[in-house]
């Protein structure tokens, strides 16, 4: 070895200084040190440490030449025999360097623990060796053993001195590392903790090289092992993902907190949507980064902690999406507009493309709403076949980048489909997306049905409100007419009450009626009833005949349709005004004379109940100032705080009414004052009062 030029050895020492300068973990330092020692100075080398407690640890071995890996493993397991009088045991025992210039088999036997150990030592083909204790602050902290043989070199006293210099540096490095022995233990504990942490932890050095990653990090990033992370070149991992912020903007590595703090800037936690390009798997990750500085204030590493908020975010997103969709869908009855807004909402979080398709008149699916993430137009034609199939089978469909759910109310055939697709984001749908899509679909279906129902109702309502009720009561010569009508509940819920006043041959017909039931069907019946009575009344001029006509019409229809009617034909026979009053399933009318009400009418079956019925007219003579008050059961059925309004209360209300207008005003006020809660049924009241000094009623109206 004396042939080695000094400057080579100087370079070797410089390299070792460089290695030992770093604050890398001890094991790594020793391994790199040995790389410099072997083969530059030795063919075989080992490094040992001895702790304060005297525990011997071999922390590194390196062998040059054939079969080196097996030999290195063997050496690493090897323990020196304490009582051996030479070599490493002697160096450790005496604290003095040992040089064996020419090794014999006897030397080896003295050192070897047993036959196998001897064979191992022989296999090293050692010619010379030096064993140098590592001394630091007066204590033996370890030993360096070097041997030559396979390279044909020998050691001499000069080499021993060099080994001592080398060991001095090594001792220093070990002591430095050993100084942080407590720290090292802490690091080990820390590493164990980090390994078991649910949060992903990634540590980068000042050059952005990843020096540590725990298994959670590997899982989160869709990698098999932590090695995949630590071997990656700085920044190369980023190519595996598409990363977006909460607003959907694409992020680069430089935008992430770890890079921001590495630049010396401050960075708060950042929530990102991470899509693994290869699989389309999407995760919501909260990135937090903390810089670590050395005492001089220079950045040594950046610790990133990444929390998986996918479930939380998904739940939050689902909740928000459903809440907002629900609000949109319930706030407007223009379902085309609502569905469009829901589609736009959906592409902001759940999918890249959202289409809502509704069954048209020809049973085919028509697109009524469509939205694309980022407002981009579709770049490909969709496989809407799955949407059609979802509708056909009434089953939801999930396949990778496509979800189709039928829009249906429970137990009813689908009215359309919600179609979701992923495109540019590269994401894949999973079961939880399907659950969310189903929920959305159900809300959309309800909204569409409601809107359709409402449209149907409100159309009927407005039609009926125009057609069912005379815009104003006509003037009947010799009589005063007053009326009050109030539809129940919501404006669009046309109920079953109707009233009419029209002229017939020889008189006027005044009637109120009520159709059992509510809603569109009842409204249609109301219309039928009113027009049948009007037509039949005008043609036949006889209330009973008119009722029979309506009864026949109702019997023709499907199901049981019941209508109650109170009908009065006002006539003047030789100056004697009278009303021919007929009831059909209707409570009695009131005849007021001198302000005293008396019930009038003969009870008879509902119209529509039976094929034939007997409706008996009664004649009520109307003297001047007499009144006839007709009303529907909405008046007497009005819900009060404790009971219903009732016939008796109506009778009391009318007591002392001076004229038709007074009667109607009294009933209106009494019902309003009595009612508790929303009005349940329509209310119609018509009062006909004979004017004082009135003439004949069968004259043509004036004007």
């Amino acid at each position: 070895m004396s042939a080695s030029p000094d400057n080579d050895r100087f370079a070797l020492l410089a390299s070792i200084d460089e290695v030992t300068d770093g604050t890398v973990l001890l094991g790594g330092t020793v391994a790199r040190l040995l790389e410099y020692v072997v083969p530059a100075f030795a063919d075989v080398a080992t490094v040992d440490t001895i702790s304060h407690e005297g525990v011997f640890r071999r922390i590194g071995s390196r062998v040059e030449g054939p079969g080196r890996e097996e030999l290195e493993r063997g050496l690493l397991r090897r323990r020196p025999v304490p009582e051996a009088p030479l070599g490493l045991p002697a160096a450790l025992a005496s604290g003095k360097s040992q040089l064996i210039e020419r090794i014999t088999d006897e030397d080896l036997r003295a050192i070897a623990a047993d036959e196998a150990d001897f064979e191992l030592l022989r296999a090293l083909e050692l010619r010379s060796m030096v064993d140098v204790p590592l001394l630091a602050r007066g204590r033996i902290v370890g030993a360096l053993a070097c041997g030559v043989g396979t390279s044909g070199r020998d050691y001499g006293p000069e080499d021993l001195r060099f080994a001592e210099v080398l060991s001095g540096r090594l001792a220093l490095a070990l002591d430095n590392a050993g100084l942080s022995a407590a720290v090292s233990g802490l690091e080990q504990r820390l590493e164990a903790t980090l390994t078991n942490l649910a949060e992903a932890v990634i540590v980068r050095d000042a050059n952005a090289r990843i020096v540590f990653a725990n298994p959670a990090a590997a899982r989160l990033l869709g990698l098999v092992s932590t090695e995949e992370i630590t071997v990656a070149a700085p920044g190369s991992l980023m190519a595996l993902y598409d990363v977006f912020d909460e607003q959907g903007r694409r992020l680069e590595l430089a935008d992430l907190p770890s890079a921001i703090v590495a630049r010396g800037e401050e960075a708060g936690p950042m929530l990102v949507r991470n899509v693994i390009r290869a699989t389309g798997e999407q995760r919501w990750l909260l990135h937090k980064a903390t810089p670590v500085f050395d005492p001089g204030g220079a950045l040594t590493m950046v610790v990133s902690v990444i929390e998986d908020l996918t479930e939380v975010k998904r739940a939050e997103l689902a909740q928000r999406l459903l809440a907002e969709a629900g609000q949109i869908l319930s706030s407007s009855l223009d379902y085309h507009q609502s569905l469009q807004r829901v589609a736009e909402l959906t592409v902001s979080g759940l999918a890249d493309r959202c289409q809502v398709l509704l069954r048209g008149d020809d049973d085919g699916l028509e697109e009524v709403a469509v939205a694309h993430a980022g407002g981009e137009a579709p770049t490909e034609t969709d496989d809407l076949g799955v949407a059609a199939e979802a509708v056909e089978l009434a089953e939801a469909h999930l396949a990778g980048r496509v979800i189709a759910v039928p829009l249906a109310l429970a137990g009813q055939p689908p009215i359309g489909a919600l179609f979701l697709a992923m495109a540019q984001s590269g994401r894949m749908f999973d079961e939880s997306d399907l659950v969310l899509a189903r929920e959305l679909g159900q809300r959309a279906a309800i909204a569409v049905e409601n809107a359709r129902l409402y449209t149907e109702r409100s159309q009927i309502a407005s039609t009926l409100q125009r057609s069912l009720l005379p815009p104003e009561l006509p003037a009947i010569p010799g009589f005063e007419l007053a009326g009050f009508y109030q539809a129940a509940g919501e404006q669009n819920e046309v109920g079953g009450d109707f009233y009419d006043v029209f002229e017939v041959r020889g008189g006027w017909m005044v009637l109120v009626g009520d159709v059992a039931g509510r809603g569109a069907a009842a409204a249609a019946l109301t219309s039928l009833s009113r027009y049948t009575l009007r037509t039949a009344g005008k043609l036949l001029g006889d209330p009973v005949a008119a009722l029979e006509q309506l009864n026949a019409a109702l019997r023709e229809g499907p199901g049981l349709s019941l209508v109650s009617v109170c009908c009065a034909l006002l006539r003047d026979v030789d100056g004697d005004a009278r009303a021919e009053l007929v009831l059909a399933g209707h409570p009695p009318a009131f005849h007021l004379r001198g302000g005293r009400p008396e019930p009038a009418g003969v009870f008879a079956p509902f119209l529509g109940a039976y094929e034939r019925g007997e409706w008996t007219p009664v004649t009520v003579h109307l003297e001047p100032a007499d009144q006839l008050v007709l009303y529907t059961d909405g008046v007497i059925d009005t819900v009060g705080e404790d009971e219903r309004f009732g016939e008796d209360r109506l009778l009391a209300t009318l007591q002392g009414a001076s004229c038709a207008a007074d009667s109607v005003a009294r009933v209106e006020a009494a019902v309003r004052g009595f009612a508790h809660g929303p009005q349940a049924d329509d209310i119609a009241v018509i009062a006909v009062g004979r004017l004082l000094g009135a003439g004949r009623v069968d004259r043509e109206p004036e004007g």
Partner: protein
Amino acid sequence: MRRAGQLSLELRRIGDASVVSARGDIDLSTVEKAGAAMDEAREEQRGGGGLFLDLREVRFMDTSGLRLVIAERQRADAEGYRFAVFPGSPKVQRLFEIAGLAGDAQLFADPATVLGVGEAG
């Protein structure tokens, strides 16, 4: 919703007959529920053993309740089973009167006859 319009229904089998006992209000808001109970009771009565609607505890009934009764009555005639009601309060009976049904002896049954004297009270 409305304060009134509460209805509870009880279904009983008495021999081959089914009895639906109503308590509360039979009106527009509850008639559907009453109809469903009647459907169920109709299935349960055997061999024309009879279907009875007990109105004794009914506080209020409007024309929608009456419509239910009339429809059931017609169905019973067509399908050959007996249907009758146990008369209710004067207010409820007033409704039958208004509908011209007060004289229909077949429509009303004496609860004592159907339930047995002990149970009828």
